[in-house]
């Protein structure tokens, strides 16, 4: 029965994407569309004294300009962590206050994009400027502590960590800093709003259509039933398309005011400021250990940035409460409000930068103890979840270490820093652990079989490029015993069954469970029809004795005794038979659930010029059942590349005086290019996890990023003897 799941089949939408036939949100053809261009503040703190739209309004093709002076009332939404949340708790254009540079202060609407762009540039703004708070380090006195953020308890204590650290035989104490980063998906945020009477349809590039529907309805003061959100394809998201940002409600109010569809596509510059970012962090780690390398204390604390008007926490201490067996554990975080936008989730929020600190510190400890970094990790292997003291649903981290180390050739590494060379270059090898919690959200799906034998399975959901549409077809195909090509997964529409946001690496588990349940339910319906039908070869055959395979239903081990789905439907004069399923996460807390992995990295460092090149990456991951080996591998590879960027390249720089982002483009905000990316070998450990969900999936979207940065930093240390605790590791830091 299990034929499709796990297979490395190609994406079902691959051809559409590479040929350009896939229509993204900004490309949906809509009649009489008008174009909106958002006007943003050039100061980071103060007030709009005067805004003059008179010249802009007379500009050719202009339909109208909306500012705080003429915008309709919008109802603010809470920010991250609530249903129907906005990216920021700040309804756009409601008053003249400026909290950050790049804040939306108006929108120009015209008949073409060029004319709207020009009109936006003609709006003159006179500000009352106040000195912005821009530097987290300088404003640390304003930090306030966080008990809990969303579901994450960050203020945590187990045993007496400070006391045991003070007594520890071996101590590591270090501070790690990571910069502000922006998501920069290839596709910028795009939205198109269409009104029919009091009903609004929005084509939006969003990771959460149902959240967007609720958020929009509440912000606009509409019943939710009046709002429909569609999203067929997304050109990358990484978290910045989860919450609702200003452009979507602005398109909606402009479309309503000017009585025609309005489209807004953000510029690349606007992607730096209007749609969130990963906060900078300053993290302190203290590790206490026995001389033989057993951790006695782990303290992880520090600060991150939030905006003046919102609370968002980059939860960088999460993995420190999960990763190692340590009896005395303390985590604490504070946030510093600055005149910057509200940070938001960005792939492995917290875990990515948190594991940079934790896994670097473990490397420092390994070196202090003269222990192999893998051996140190094995000596502190957590057989149960250290903070919760519950067993793991499954954990194959030891197998990950062993397999990746072998494939990488870790045994060839000479431990002394600077001891490996290739001509004038220093070679370094580093490793780190990876860990990301399994997320499971409620989701629903409907599966249907048609008279022609084709299968459609539907769930709202979103395809952010992970392969969701492909793996859902695979799950369905196996339940029904049909080829994948016979199954179509329909998604991206709030008219379909309700599903969660595509976040937390949770879609395969959540929507997958719903799809699996719906497929089983529709299969059961067909089987029941056959079982009760004297004309069916399966009449009276009990369900456990029935097999479905090759588009047929038949008696187990006797494929001749059976029939096709079509035959059953035809005999009952049915055009279609369908069934829905509401999947809920298991409530019980008897298990801790995480995907795990191990990264091994080789770098080549130019000792005189400071340039670092990653030359080899091997990783092994255990994430429950892998639904599609190819798309799963792509997820890990993509996260790995993001890790290279965070380790070596990415940094958003804000001018300290003005609070403006200075490198708001892809020439100066450095992401890894092809030349920076070495061969990446990804291995999966087979895992059967019966505790997580009926399909045994733990998620692969983010685990590949956790630990990756530290693996590179550890390799750089091994190459050079220089411990870089401040990202990114640019050439100047290694001179």
């Amino acid at each position, binding site marked *: 029965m299990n034929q499709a799941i796990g297979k490395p089949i190609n994406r079902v939408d691959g051809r559409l994407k590479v040929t350009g036939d896939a229509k993204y949100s900004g490309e949906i053809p809509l009649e009489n569309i008008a174009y909106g261009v958002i006007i943003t503040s050039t100061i980071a703190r103060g007030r709009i004294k005067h805004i003059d739209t008179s010249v802009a309004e007379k500009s050719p093709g202009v339909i109208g300009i909306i500012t705080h002076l003429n915008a309709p009332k919008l109802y603010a939404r809470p920010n991250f962590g609530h249903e129907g949340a906005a990216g920021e708790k700040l309804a756009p254009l409601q008053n003249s206050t400026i909290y950050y540079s790049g804040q939306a202060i108006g929108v120009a609407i015209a008949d073409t994009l060029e004319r709207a762009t020009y009109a936006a540039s003609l709006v003159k703004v006179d500000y009352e400027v106040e000195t912005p708070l821009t530097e987290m380090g300088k404003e640390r006195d304003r930090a306030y502590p966080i008990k809990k953020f969303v579901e994450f308890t960050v203020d945590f204590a187990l045993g007496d960590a400070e006391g045991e650290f003070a007594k520890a035989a071996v101590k590591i104490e270090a501070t790690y800093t990571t910069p502000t980063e922006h998501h920069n998906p290839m596709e910028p945020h795009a939205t198109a709003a269409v009104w029919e009477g009091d009903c609004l349809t929005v084509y939006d590039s969003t990771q959460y259509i149902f959240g967007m529907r609720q958020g929009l309805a509440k912000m606009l003061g509409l019943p939710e039933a009046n709002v429909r959100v569609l999203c067929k394809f997304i050109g990358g998201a990484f978290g910045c398309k989860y919450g609702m940002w200003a452009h979507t409600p602005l398109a909606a109010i402009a479309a309503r005011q000017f009585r025609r569809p309005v489209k807004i596509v953000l510029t690349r510059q606007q992607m730096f400021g209007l749609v969130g970012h990963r906060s900078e962090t300053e993290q302190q780690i203290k590790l206490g250990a026995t001389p033989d390398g057993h951790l006695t204390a782990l303290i992880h604390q520090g600060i991150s940035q939030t905006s003046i008007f919102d609370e968002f926490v980059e939860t960088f201490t999460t993995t420190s409460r999960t990763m190692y067996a340590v009896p005395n554990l303390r985590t604490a975080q504070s946030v510093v409000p600055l005149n910057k936008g509200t940070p938001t989730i960005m792939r492995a929020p917290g875990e990515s930068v948190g594991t940079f600190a934790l896994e670097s510190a473990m490397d420092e400890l390994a070196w202090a103890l003269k222990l192999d970094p893998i051996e140190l990790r094995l000596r502190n292997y957590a057989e149960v979840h250290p903070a919760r003291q519950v067993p793991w649903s499954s954990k194959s981290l030891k197998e990950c270490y062993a397999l990746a180390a072998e494939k990488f050739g870790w045994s060839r590494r000479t431990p002394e820093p600077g001891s490996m060379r290739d001509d004038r270059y220093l070679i370094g090898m580093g490793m780190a652990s990876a860990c990301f919690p399994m997320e499971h959200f409620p989701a629903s799906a409907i599966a249907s079989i048609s008279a022609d034998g084709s299968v459609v399975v539907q769930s709202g959901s979103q395809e952010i490029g992970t392969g969701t549409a492909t793996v859902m077809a695979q799950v369905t195909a196996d339940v029904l015993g049909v080829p994948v090509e016979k199954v179509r997964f329909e998604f991206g529409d709030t008219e379909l069954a309700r599903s969660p946001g595509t976040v937390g690496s949770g879609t395969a588990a959540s929507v997958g469970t719903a799809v699996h349940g719906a497929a089983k339910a529709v299969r059961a319906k067909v089987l029941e029809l056959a079982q009760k039908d004297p004309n069916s070869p399966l009449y009276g055959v009990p369900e456990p004795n029935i097999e479905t395979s090759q588009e047929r239903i038949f008696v187990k081990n006797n494929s001749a005794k059976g029939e096709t789905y079509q035959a059953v439907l035809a005999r009952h004069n049915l055009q279609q038979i369908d069934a829905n399923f509401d999947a809920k996460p298991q409530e019980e807390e008897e298990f801790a659930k995480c995907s795990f992995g191990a990264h091994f990295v080789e770098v080549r460092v130019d000792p005189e010029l400071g340039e670092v090149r990653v030359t080899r990456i091997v990783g092994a991951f255990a994430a429950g059942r892998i639904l599609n080996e190819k798309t799963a591998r792509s997820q890990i590879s993509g996260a790995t590349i993001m890790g290279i960027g965070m380790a070596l390249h990415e940094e958003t720089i804000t*001018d300290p*005086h*003005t609070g403006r982002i200075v490198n708001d483009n892809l020439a100066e905000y450095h992401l890894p*290019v092809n030349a920076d990316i070495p061969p990446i070998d990804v291995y999966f450990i087979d895992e059967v996890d019966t505790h997580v969900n009926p399909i045994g999936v733990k998620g692969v979207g983010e685990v590949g990023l956790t630990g990756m940065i530290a693996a590179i930093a550890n390799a750089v240390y091994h190459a050079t003897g220089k411990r870089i605790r401040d990202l990114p590791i640019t050439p*100047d830091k290694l*001179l």
Partner: protein
Amino acid sequence: MKPFSYVRATSQNTAIQGVADRQSAKFIAGGTNLIDLMKVEVAQPDRLVDITQLPLSEIEINSDGLRIGALVRNSDLAYHPEVRSHYPLLSQAILAGASPQLRNMATVGGNLMQRTRCYYFMDIAAPCNKRDPDSGCAAIDGYNRIHAIFGASDKCIATHPSDMCVGLAALDARVRVSSSNGDRIIPIADFHRLPGDIPERDTVLEQDELIIAVDLPNSPFAKNYHYLKVRDRASYAFALVSVAAALDIQNGTIKAARIALGGVAHKPWRAFVAEDILVGAKPTEETFTAAATATVSDAKPYRHNQFKVEMAKRAIVRALMNATEQS
């Protein structure tokens, strides 16, 4: 982007006339820099004169060297057999810059006219003497990691972003320009300016002057050369520091030397003092270090770019070592 008119010039004269009568008219060829600047309103020409139809796309070999038409694409120049065999330093420099897609569009003349990547020049909300004369310089007290360590002024600390021009500087190129007053030849060392009190002027070109060609004299530097670029990522990043190094080594002695630096000044920075030290000396690491040390002795870094001094020094040594090893 502001509205502008667009004309396609059919002859050199009409092209020149097209910009001569107004300050806000500009030539356009590949557009790889100008269009970007127009999108962010840093450049606001009201007329673009497209010169891509002019017959300036030839590379001619003559007894004096090479004449490169102003419209020759960067990629065509880098891969031209004559350039690869006789001016390989230039080929290396060009291929160190931008990306294949950009090099396929960008022209030689346009590359000479590239504008700085200074963050504050690129942001119309920031003061910038280069973009908006007498408005101030936000970079001096701002974030200046990518800025100049040589030849800056209290008005401007921007750098020139080109790699190709650094190669041309080392090869003593001459820029041929044409205007209604006739033609003139500008040595590459004089073509780009230091900012001084008028940072708004990147080059010595007058409004109505059109670059028609770049001449390369016969070169003894086809054997011992190296273009070294230190950058934040492996490709598609502007130089933190780059070095074009060329040596003419005869019987173990340096007969002629050329060193030019990129990413460190408002123009490609010829290290004449280093060249003087090298000529007549043996090509050893000690000599190279002395030349490099002398070059950076008058460097004036700012808060965030102090590393460039040491980096430039090491890059000069490395480039010279690589140039020497090439033979």
